[in-house]
């Protein structure tokens, strides 16, 4: 699919799109304002999008602010991500019952196939979905319940305060992985979308909407938006030899320094769209006759994540922070063949003490201890 093959869709076309998806039985998940943040939730119409809102993000800072226009997607990413839908925070793996005769019966929960349409997905999150799916389907894993998904992504026109997708090669322009991609243009009293088709399913959807081919000038305007976003990136991460840089600096003094700030709260792992660690918890009721296994989100920042024989392999914040960062940026390559980071900036925004992963990398790079006499 060539990018730049734009169709023009009026603002009302967005309402029509959401209605169309709902009519076809899809659960539509999109950004919406709630509790002072833009989160992902089920929406029943385009009116529930964060119309006229933007987010101001910086290290340890998140605020919503009213825009002076009615843009529907005039924001970047919030605290949650599609991870919540691909890898539910809690999931019952099985229930089991032990009868009076000692016989045990096991039941897997029924998984109804979900039909979900995700609207407003940014390039970074598209990459994150790819990475997370790569992890979830690696090896001899049991199959995930079949989902039918449609992805309506949005090309970013503005960079968020903590974004660094250009450094990670994950945006701001989404090239693939979507069914439809929207570029919102709000200018000179006009409000319309440039639409790119990514798949036959997307084409089929678009055919039901009042879209027409975009003019050359309109196409140019649309193509400009992600370039503007790229120019605005406030942070960079030099990724050249990042994998070897970090594994070659495991005893760097910076780890102790960042540990003096890190609260080990795990916000970063919860907000991160690719963090996938889960714990498997077995429980039973008081009679011992009913048992259940649940899979729940876990974080490598908890002391018991690396529990072994009565103690923890990583009892200090220092080793746990190092584990998170080296896994995300370095050993993820060894384990899954890609980086784990998409440059979405969530870990920077949602860290209560404002630890910035790009700053930590730069600090280690600046005083690389490889080549020092050891």
């Amino acid at each position, binding site marked *: 699919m060539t990018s730049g093959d734009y169709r023009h869709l009026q603002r009302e076309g967005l309402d029509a799109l959401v209605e169309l998806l709902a009519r076809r039985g899809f659960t539509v998940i999109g950004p919406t304002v709630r509790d002072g943040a833009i989160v992902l939730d089920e929406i029943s119409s385009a009116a529930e999008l964060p119309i006229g809102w933007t987010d101001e993000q910086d290290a340890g800072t998140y605020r919503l602010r009213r825009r002076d226009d009615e843009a529907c997607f005039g924001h970047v990413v919030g605290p949650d991500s599609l991870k919540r839908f691909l890898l539910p925070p809690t999931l019952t793996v099985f229930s089991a019952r032990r009868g009076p005769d000692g016989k045990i019966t096991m039941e897997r929960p029924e998984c109804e196939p979900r039909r979900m349409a995700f609207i407003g997905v940014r390039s970074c999150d598209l990459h994150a979905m790819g990475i997370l799916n790569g992890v979830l389907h690696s090896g001899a894993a049991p199959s995930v319940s079949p989902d039918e998904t449609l992805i309506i992504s949005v090309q970013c026109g503005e960079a968020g305060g903590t974004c660094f997708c250009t450094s990670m090669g994950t945006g701001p322009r989404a090239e693939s992985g979507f069914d439809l991609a929207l570029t919102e243009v709000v200018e000179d009293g006009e409000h319309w979308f440039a639409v790119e088709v990514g798949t036959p399913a997307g084409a089929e959807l678009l055919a039901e909407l009042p879209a027409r081919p975009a003019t050359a000038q309109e196409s140019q305007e649309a193509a400009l938006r992600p370039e503007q976003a790229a120019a605005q990136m406030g942070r960079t991460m030099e990724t050249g030899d990042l994998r070897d840089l970090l594994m070659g600096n495991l005893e760097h003094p910076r780890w102790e320094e960042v540990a003096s700030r890190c609260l080990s709260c795990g916000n970063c792992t919860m907000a991160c769209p690719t963090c996938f660690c889960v714990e498997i918890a077995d429980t039973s009721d008081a009679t011992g006759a009913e048992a259940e296994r649940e899979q729940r989100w876990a974080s490598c920042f908890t002391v018991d994540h690396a529990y*072994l*024989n*009565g*103690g923890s392999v990583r009892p200090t914040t220092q080793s746990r922070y190092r584990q998170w960062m080296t896994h995300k940026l370095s050993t993820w390559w060894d384990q899954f063949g890609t980086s784990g980071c998409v440059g979405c900036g969530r870990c920077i925004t949602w860290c209560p003490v404002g630890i910035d992963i790009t700053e930590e990398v730069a600090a280690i790079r600046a005083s690389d201890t490889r080549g020092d006499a050891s």
Partner: protein
Amino acid sequence: MKTLDALLSECPVFTGLDGETLELIAGCGRNVRFPAEQHLFREGEAADTFYVVRHGVITLEMRVPARRPLVIETLHDGDVVGWSWLVPPYRWAFDARAAEPTAAVALDGACLREKCREDPALGYELLQRFSQVMVERLQAARLRLLDVYGDPRAA
């Protein structure tokens, strides 16, 4: 029937020493045999004679009231038994007992100490070799102190 210096050269602590040195050391030594259960030396005795096991098993142990002796270590073919002859106060810290019929070379520690005083180069060479033995025994003792097979949950 091998000569004493040939026997000594087979023991790791003396392997590699030149013929002249081996003869010198052999001059302080003699072949001995211990039947099973016989003691080589006891705790507190003067450490003048030490041994190199040719064939058999020697148990280093410690006597405790109202209990059977506790075994510190067992020593086997080629092992040195005792280094207290090298360092003051030249006293044995443990009992050594033949666990089975054992053939050994007994070496006169006092005689060797004198030869080392006369020939510091010899002294240095022996001290280096015996330090090696001590280090190995110390590492082993430390490993056992760690109780690696104990309950890993214990602090």
